[in-house]
């Protein structure tokens, strides 16, 4: 009973730790089944068959859920990797080029805007100072955005990323 409850609550971690503690090889479910069939008490103090009949459906359920989770993780994972690879290049060279151009563009545009404002408003050098700093921030934002750490344009961080960078392709 206890076994079943803990297993249900803790998931795979519990099982692995448990097997380790009893000094047996973590050979999976087959081990427990054999243990139970032999009628020896497992460490919860209960003899096998009773606990086993209770534990079995839950284990099946857990297994099924774990498999579902793994499958859904697997469908998610390669998509992101593929996108990274496609956008950044097989080598780090492409990635470096991409990120540096994002950053330089941010700083450059900020400096350019500040310079133009100074020129037309005669506020030299304050426009350049302020906009260079803003441009620096925008460059960092560009870099973080292009590696998918910040929400895309027009969506706040609290709205989730329904069309976030990792789901776009």
């Amino acid at each position, binding site marked *: 009973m206890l076994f079943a409850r803990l297993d249900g609550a803790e998931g795979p971690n519990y099982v692995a730790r448990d097997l380790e503690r009893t000094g047996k090889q973590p050979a999976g479910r087959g081990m427990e089944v054999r243990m139970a069939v032999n009628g020896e008490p497992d460490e919860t103090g209960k003899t096998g068959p009773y606990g086993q009949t209770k534990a079995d459906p839950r284990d099946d359920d857990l297994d099924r859920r774990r498999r579902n989770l793994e499958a859904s993780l697997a469908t998610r994972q390669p998509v992101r990797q593929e996108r990274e690879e*496609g*956008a950044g*290049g*097989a*080598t780090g060279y*492409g990635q470096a*080029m*991409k990120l540096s*151009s*994002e950053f*330089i*563009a*941010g700083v*450059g*545009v*900020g400096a350019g*805007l500040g310079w133009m404002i100074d020129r037309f408003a005669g506020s030299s050098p304050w426009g350049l100072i302020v*906009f260079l700093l*803003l*441009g620096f*921030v*925008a*460059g960092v*934002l*560009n870099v973080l*955005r292009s590696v998918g750490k910040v*929400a*895309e*344009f*027009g*969506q*706040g*961080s*609290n*709205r989730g990323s*329904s*069309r976030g960078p990792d789901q*776009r*392709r």
Partner: protein
Amino acid sequence: MVPVRRGLERTEAGCGLRGQQVASPDKVDPIHQFAINKIVDLNIGGFDVSFTNSSLFMVVTVVLTSAFLYFATSSRAVVPSRMQSVAEMSYEFIANMLRDAAGKQGMRFFPLVFSLFMFVLVANLLGMFPYFFTVTSHIIVTFCLAMIVILTVIGYGLYKHGLHFFNLFVPSGVPAILLPLVVAIEVISFLSRPISLSVRLFANMLAGHITLKVFSGFVVSLSAFGIGGMAGAVLPLGMAVALTGLEFLVSFLQAYVFAVLTCMYLNDAIHPGH
């Protein structure tokens, strides 16, 4: 392609000086390959609109792409020939990319994205031939391409959504005090898009071609030192071969990246409210 060429030629007037500095033939000059030479001298209304080697390769790119697509699709066989299936693959490639990034509504921009992709790809690949001019290694060309994209995004966004388009710069859930700062940063970030789009393509092509030239130059200068030099020249020669492969990869990848980013920016114009 007209605005591209016009923008290019206006700056070529400034670049003309560099074109006249001819490198001595015995010295390897890695920059020399980017020099712009006038083929037909033209001057209309005070603007230098000469037909240059850059213009020539743009025309070659456009003609080659058009001719390829025309002849590949002219037979329209149910079972496609090799040429036809390459054309169909490129269509499918861009169509899927655009549909994934911008949805069904994005398909109205298909001609734009497809033209940009094919132009950049063919220009990059043409640049891989020895003695050919690489059109995309000049920032003004890539900048004009990027401006076409961004102006389309802004124009279509304003036409479709009116002032609602500017919600793009106002992220939700930001405290009112921070809003002016955040909006300023977002605007700068948006304005830096054409710059980063053009700088990325231009810098990749420029750096790749210079590296290739430098390593090939090592082969030439080393092999001038006799047998020992020739043995040593094997290393840069291998490097040059490897870099050539890498450059083909980069050529394709940069065209792909350009098209993907175009799709993503167009998505902002179509759905600014996300």
